[in-house]
């Protein structure tokens, strides 16, 4: 290693200055990134991972500052660079790619102008040379039809395409280092899978060093060579992918793995083990180990003394952990086997949906449209949905954006009414009744948990009365005292302190708000609860706790749960049956085991393969989808998936809607390919028992 690393950070400490005084955001961070290497930084929100990225760019905003250590770019201290040098380095040496691709592109310039500008200004290339380079780079990031992309404005491209263009801009500048801050979080899973593949190829083909920041351990495992796990401003563990994923030693890292559902787990045999408590605020960090208050192995007198050194683990090269008790803690032994839970017996059918259909009319009042008689067009948000849900059952609806899962939830809740078919809730037809026309017992029977914790509670009202309102409406409790007691009971159930009754929503963390949202949904004793991505906005450790809470309440009340999600790992873990949707169609439905093993609908197969897996014992078959989701305004004429399907069999897929075929009672696949042929597919996931516990 004669060459200096592309980037080196030495004992970097960063603080922000706020009303509350100096807040250390990152403490003692050291990293070396070599050419062709991908470094992963993983952690929950507020752990300082984005601050590290900003420090690498030497861009700390108005109230941040590097208070210790240094950042060296190719051996040169960046703090000693002049503004001019820094500007050059940022533009052409280090490229940063953010979560929201649209924000990184200038909306009023064509892609051509934005790409060609780089060789034109940085290298003084000629017009035609710049154009050729730009076209080549678009081909390199696997954008179909680069000529067309060149002439497009950013808004004419999909999110995935935009992100590829942003990556192309970084490559075009011949950047030696790409900093990727959650580059796929805003994208759909199947699109994400393509970008991840691309990021992996880049370091191999161009020798670019990369720093990949993510909260998703699965993504980190699939893209990186080395991983840094951050917690509350500190790196708590670092190591190669293999060391860290096969043998996590810091209790926090170990805890994180306990919080993620893997496709080999299910809710009854191996429940998730959430980490208790929550991330300390930067100015409320405990003495000694920051993770101490949440750690099962906390020893007073040792873990709360001084600063905890970052030490090598078991004499292994490159594997470090910030824990004083690494040698003593034996995770495989200490592991208290979580109590197994009895599966719920499913009761009678509660919800019966039969060929439900929802079309939205779209009016075009332009004169040519009226002359052609095409004034009204229909967006087919839901096309003939058919499935049942039984008491105490968890039915998951999975699909990517635009698949119609949220529209379905709206129709079910009565915020919209159906265009055709029927929805029967406990034998009452509700498809055509808006919520205000439904009898009170129908309304209270069906409640909802919302996705966004920052939106789910009214910021103007205290927490207690918001739950109390539901009780007042749906139960016979009338007196204020009686209602307040009931709210207290609900707060106990969702494991929140009773004095949260008087709190304002802004005083609560995301996880706590989501708990209040759950308490509110269950306050009226509903027969069925619709949960629309209830944990997707939460941090891993908090999400696990909220998921378990939801399961526990369901277990107690025998509630039917309709779980809407795009996260197949979670779906595999908690649902009894699965409905896979694509562009308003049900592509496949059946019990979870049936959907997750062959025969697959080709879309299910691709969706499963796109899930990032953090479990090193699982081998995944790789299926990459080409192209983008078609627009709901102009769906394909035949099978909705025909434009991207790797198993397309011919004209029939483009022109005729596929038939729904029954594989076994309750398990149907909507596809032109005969079942016999689909049955020949190999499973997407293969589970390998770890060869031997290679500890040490």
């Amino acid at each position, binding site marked *: 290693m004669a060459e200096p690393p592309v980037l080196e950070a030495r004992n970097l400490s960063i603080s922000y200055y706020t009303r509350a005084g100096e807040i250390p955001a990152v403490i003692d961070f050291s990293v070396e990134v070599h050419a062709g290497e991908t470094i992963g930084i993983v952690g929950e929100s507020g752990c300082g991972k984005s601050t590290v990225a900003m420090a690498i760019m030497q861009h700390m905003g108005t109230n941040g500052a590097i208070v210790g250590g240094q950042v060296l770019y190719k051996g040169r201290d960046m703090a000693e660079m002049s503004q001019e040098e820094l500007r050059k380095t940022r533009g052409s040496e280090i490229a940063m790619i953010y979560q929201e691709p649209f924000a990184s592109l200038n909306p009023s310039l064509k892609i051509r102008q934005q790409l060609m500008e780089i060789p034109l200004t940085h290298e003084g290339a000629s017009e035609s040379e710049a154009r050729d380079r730009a076209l080549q780079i678009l081909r390199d990031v696997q954008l179909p039809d680069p000529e067309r992309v060149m002439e497009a404005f950013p808004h004419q491209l999909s999110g995935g395409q935009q992100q590829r263009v942003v990556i192309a801009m970084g490559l075009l500048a011949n950047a030696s280092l790409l900093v990727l801050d959650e580059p796929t979080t805003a994208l759909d899973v199947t699109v994400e899978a393509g970008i991840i593949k691309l990021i992996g190829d880049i370091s191999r083909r161009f020798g670019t060093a990369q720093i990949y920041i993510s909260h998703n351990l699965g993504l980190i495992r699939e893209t990186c060579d080395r991983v840094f796990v951050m917690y509350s401003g500190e790196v708590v563990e670092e190591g190669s992918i293999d060391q860290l994923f096969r043998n996590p030693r810091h209790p926090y890292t170990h805890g994180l793995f306990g919080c993620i559902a893997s496709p080999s787990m299910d809710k009854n045999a191996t429940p998730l083990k959430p980490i*208790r*408590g*929550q991330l300390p605020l930067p100015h409320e960090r405990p003495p000694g180990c920051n993770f101490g208050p949440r750690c099962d192995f906390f020893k007073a007198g040792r873990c709360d003394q001084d600063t905890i050194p970052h030490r090598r683990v078991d004499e292994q090269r490159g594997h470090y952990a910030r824990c004083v008790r690494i040698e003593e803690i034996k995770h495989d032994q200490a592991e208290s086997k979580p109590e197994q839970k009895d599966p719920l017996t499913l009761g009678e059918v509660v919800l019966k949906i039969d060929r439900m259909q929802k079309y939205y009319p779209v009016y075009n009042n332009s004169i040519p449209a009226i002359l052609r008689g095409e004034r009204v067009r229909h967006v087919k948000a839901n096309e003939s949905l058919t499935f049942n849900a039984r008491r105490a059952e968890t039915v998951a609806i999975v699909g990517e954006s635009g698949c119609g899962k949220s529209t379905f939830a709206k129709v079910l*809740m*009565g*915020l919209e009414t159906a265009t055709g078919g029927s929805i029967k809730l406990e034998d009452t037809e509700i498809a055509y009744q808006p*919520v*205000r026309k*439904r009898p*009170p017992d129908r*309304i*209270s029977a*069906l*409640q*909802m948990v*919302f*996705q*966004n914790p920052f*939106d*789910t*509670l*009214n*910021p*103007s*009202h205290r927490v207690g009365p918001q739950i109390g*309102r*539901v009780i007042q*409406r*749906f139960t016979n409790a009338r007196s204020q005292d009686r209602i307040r007691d009931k709210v*207290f009971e609900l*707060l*106990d159930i969702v*494991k*929140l*302190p*009773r*004095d949260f*009754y*008087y709190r304002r929503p802004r*005083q*609560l*963390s995301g*996880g*706590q708000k989501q708990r209040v*949202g759950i308490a*509110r949904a269950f306050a*009226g004793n509903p027969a069925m609860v619709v949960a629309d991505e209830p944990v997707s906005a939460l941090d891993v450790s908090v999400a696990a*706790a909220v998921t378990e809470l939801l399961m526990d309440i369901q277990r107690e009340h025998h509630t039917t749960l309709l779980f809407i999600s795009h996260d197949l790992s979670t779906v595999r873990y908690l649902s009894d049956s699965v409905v896979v949707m694509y562009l308003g169609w049900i592509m496949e439905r059946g019990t979870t085991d049936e959907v997750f093993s062959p025969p697959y609908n080709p879309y299910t197969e691709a969706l499963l393969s796109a899930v990032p897996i953090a479990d090193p014992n699982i081998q995944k078959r790789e299926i990459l989808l080409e192209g983008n989701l078609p627009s709901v305004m102009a769906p394909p004429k035949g099978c909705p998936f025909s434009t991207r399907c790797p198993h397309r069999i011919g004209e029939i897929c483009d022109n005729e809607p596929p038939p729904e075929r029954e594989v076994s009672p309750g398990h149907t696949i909507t596809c032109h390919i005969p079942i016999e042929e689909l049955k020949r597919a190999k499973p997407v996931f293969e589970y390998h028992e770890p060869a031997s516990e290679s500890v040490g």
Partner: protein
Amino acid sequence: MSDNPTATASARPSRIMGFLRSIALLRESWFGMIGAAIVLFWVLMAILAPLLPLYDPLDASVRLVPPGGEAFDGGTHWLGTDNRGRDVLSRVIWGSQRVMVWAMLAILCAYAVGITMGVLAGYLGGLVDDVVSFFANILLSFPVLVLYVLIIAFLGASGVNIVIAVTFTTAPIVMRIVRGLIMDLRTRDYVAAAQTRGESSLYIMFVELLPNARGPLIVDVCLRFGYTVVAIATLSFLGLGLPPPEPDWGMMINEAVELGAHAGHVMLAPAAALSSLILGFNMMADGLREISLRD
């Protein structure tokens, strides 16, 4: 903040303390502090006018005494007297009361109408929105002063008619602001939550939505209070305002204009009072906006 349940429930935090604490936030903007101090000064003047050792604002004595001049009873006319021998200081302070009371009433009325219209249009949308917005646009298409003059000329000059005139000109603007805020807020999940438990539209509009629009509205009230004071003064200046003989800043300026340059103090005192009050409201609004943008 821990996740562990504690069995005890603490007492309900008092509403008054919460209000005081949010007022206290204003000290983070010295600009807003100065504004609030000026406004507070005039509010106190208006309230305390009857208790202050002032000459009767309507009593005539020696005409056009210069500021600091001696009164016939041996006292001092700190700001002199006007052309009818009335004490200017006393008239300015009593005038503040009149301006404040009518401006407050007018603003209350305009906001009540504007908010109701805005919430209805913003939440219900469709035909209601079309109709309300149509009338608002018609009113907004008139130059404000023309509208004032038209309304007062039609109804006659009186306090109540000023309130009506201000309502006609201000309510459409308020309606627009509220409508925009509500259209944004109505897509929030807590509104969907209220809808899915079958709440009535009225409940959603005024309990779930309106309180969340209050931030920008409070800033706007401060600004518009200033404008209303100007409007009332302008009307008085044009002779369309509050009827004499009670003192009123606009009317005082009007009367002083006729005297010309040799009695500058008679004009300067009410003009300075008017400017300072408006400046105070504007600075307070700026301060509030500055604070609300932080965090």
